């Protein structure tokens, strides 16, 4: 029996698509506080303003992340959501769960929370929505002691690392994303649970340049699998695509008649660097010009594969638009071996070099990408002892990106900037 009238929300149940309103009503049958979620949301729709407040000292003992305090600003009207804290759980690498584990988490959340979840949050966590302050410690105890399940990150912490399915299911994975994600999660437990940074910091690991976790757009440190030799070509399979025996895109677009496969139109002419051509029915690739866009491999997966010498490209500084605008990550290391054999030593050294600099030089609430923008990429590269290379520059042929310091040139020079500015106004 509905506790509040929700005419505006009820409109959202009328379309042919699944409705979160219907879901919450169903959940309210066992968790009456869910009626108050709907009541408060209806009020927000009417008032055109949120009635949630978030933040505070709420959390579990010893952890500076994983719980986000949330409160209603109209608790007397909606007492069921007076406290409605969010709990973030560290998802397994690649988001593989057993059904038994999912049932156990849901049972626990039914016991201590609203029963509502968000699978998964944009950082990757399994998000449990809505509990009260007194329930937090008992929930945490059962999660850690009975389910061997830890909290994820929030606040100015290392956020829960996330990765694609990697080598567990994907033939294109050039690095074992699950292994590196797990290793970094375990190595940096302190950074995940105890705030150390000027602001949030995210790792994401993608096995190939398709970048299925969108690490290039969403993570401060983006690790994307790649190769540095040549795309492996099976010319016999190319011919089978040409003859129509193999379906392009593994048959993904076969629900409609697109006509006969046209390799020139659908692959060669779409190559962003024009590094491919056909010689008769033989496909030729000038690999030195390939930018790893993956289009040809996606279209003809049985004929083309990533090269055999595999590793990762490391990019730094993506973020969503909170202070400035949204920003993609900048490529810093074009190729790095990412090996469990040496405990990912090169990657660890890079990460810790970035953190040491950012912890000291980043401003409060400044993502590392914003810090880099503020000081300039050359300064950042110098901090990391990375030599500038043409790949760091969008237009290396027209951008004079090589700068010399006076001590790097025999004899050096003296320069008075004020004198210079008198003659060259800025």
């Amino acid at each position, binding site marked *: 029996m509905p506790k509040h009238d929700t005419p505006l929300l009820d409109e959202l149940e009328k379309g042919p698509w699944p409705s979160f309103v219907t879901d919450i009503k169903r959940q309210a049958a066992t968790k009456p506080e869910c009626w108050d979620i709907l009541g408060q949301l209806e009020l927000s729709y009417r008032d055109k303003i949120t009635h949630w407040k978030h933040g505070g000292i709420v959390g579990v003992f010893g952890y500076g992340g994983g719980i986000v305090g949330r409160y209603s600003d109209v608790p007397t009207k909606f007492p069921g959501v007076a406290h409605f804290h969010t709990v973030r759980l560290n998802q397994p690498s690649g988001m593989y769960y057993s059904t038994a584990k999912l049932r156990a988490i849901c049972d626990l959340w039914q016991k201590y929370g609203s029963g509502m979840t968000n699978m998964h949050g944009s950082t990757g966590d399994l998000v449990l929505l809505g509990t009260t302050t007194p329930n937090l410690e008992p929930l945490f105890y059962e999660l850690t002691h009975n389910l061997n399940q830890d909290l994820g990150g929030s606040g*100015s912490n290392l956020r829960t690392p996330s990765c694609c399915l990697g080598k567990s299911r994907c033939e294109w994975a050039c690095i074992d994303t699950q292994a590196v994600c797990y290793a970094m999660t375990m190595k940096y437990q302190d950074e995940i649970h105890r705030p150390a940074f000027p602001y949030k910091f995210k790792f994401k690991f993608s096995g190939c340049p398709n970048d299925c976790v969108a690490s290039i757009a969403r993570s401060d440190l983006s690790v994307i699998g790649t190769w540095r030799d040549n795309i492996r070509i099976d010319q016999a399979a190319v011919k089978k695509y040409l003859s129509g025996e193999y379906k392009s895109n593994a048959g993904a677009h076969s629900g409609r008649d697109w006509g006969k496969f046209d390799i020139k139109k659908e692959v060669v002419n779409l190559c962003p660097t024009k590094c491919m051509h056909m010689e008769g029915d033989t496909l030729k690739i000038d690999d030195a010009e390939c930018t790893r866009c993956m289009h040809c491999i996606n279209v003809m997966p049985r004929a083309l594969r990533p090269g055999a010498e595999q590793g990762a490209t490391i990019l730094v500084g993506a973020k969503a638009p909170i202070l400035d605008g949204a920003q993609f990550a900048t490529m810093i290391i074009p190729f790095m071996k990412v090996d469990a054999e040496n405990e990912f030593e090169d990657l660890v050294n890079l990460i810790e070099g970035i953190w040491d600099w950012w912890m000291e030089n980043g401003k409060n609430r400044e993502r590392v990408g914003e810090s880099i923008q503020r000081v300039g990429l050359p300064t950042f590269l110098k901090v990391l002892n990375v030599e500038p290379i043409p790949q760091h520059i969008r237009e290396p042929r027209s951008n004079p990106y090589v700068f010399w310091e006076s001590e790097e040139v025999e004899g050096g020079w003296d320069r008075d900037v004020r004198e210079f500015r008198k003659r060259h106004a800025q």
Partner: protein
Amino acid sequence: MAMSKEELKAAILKKAQTAAKPQLYVKDFYECDPDSKPRDVKNAANDLVKEGKMDFWSSGSTTMYAAKGRAKDEEHRG
């Protein structure tokens, strides 16, 4: 020379108790001892939380530190 951990903790706690703002970023404590590394300052502040002398205050996206009793939950704000 950097302070000992106990000296650093005392300096951090004093700043947290006397600063005009009830909540401070971890960077605000760096000035307690410019010779200490940022990581050591963070570890000392976290020890104070474990000892119950300071609290974490988090908005969800940012986390700050506050002397026990100075920071308030959003529940108690208007």
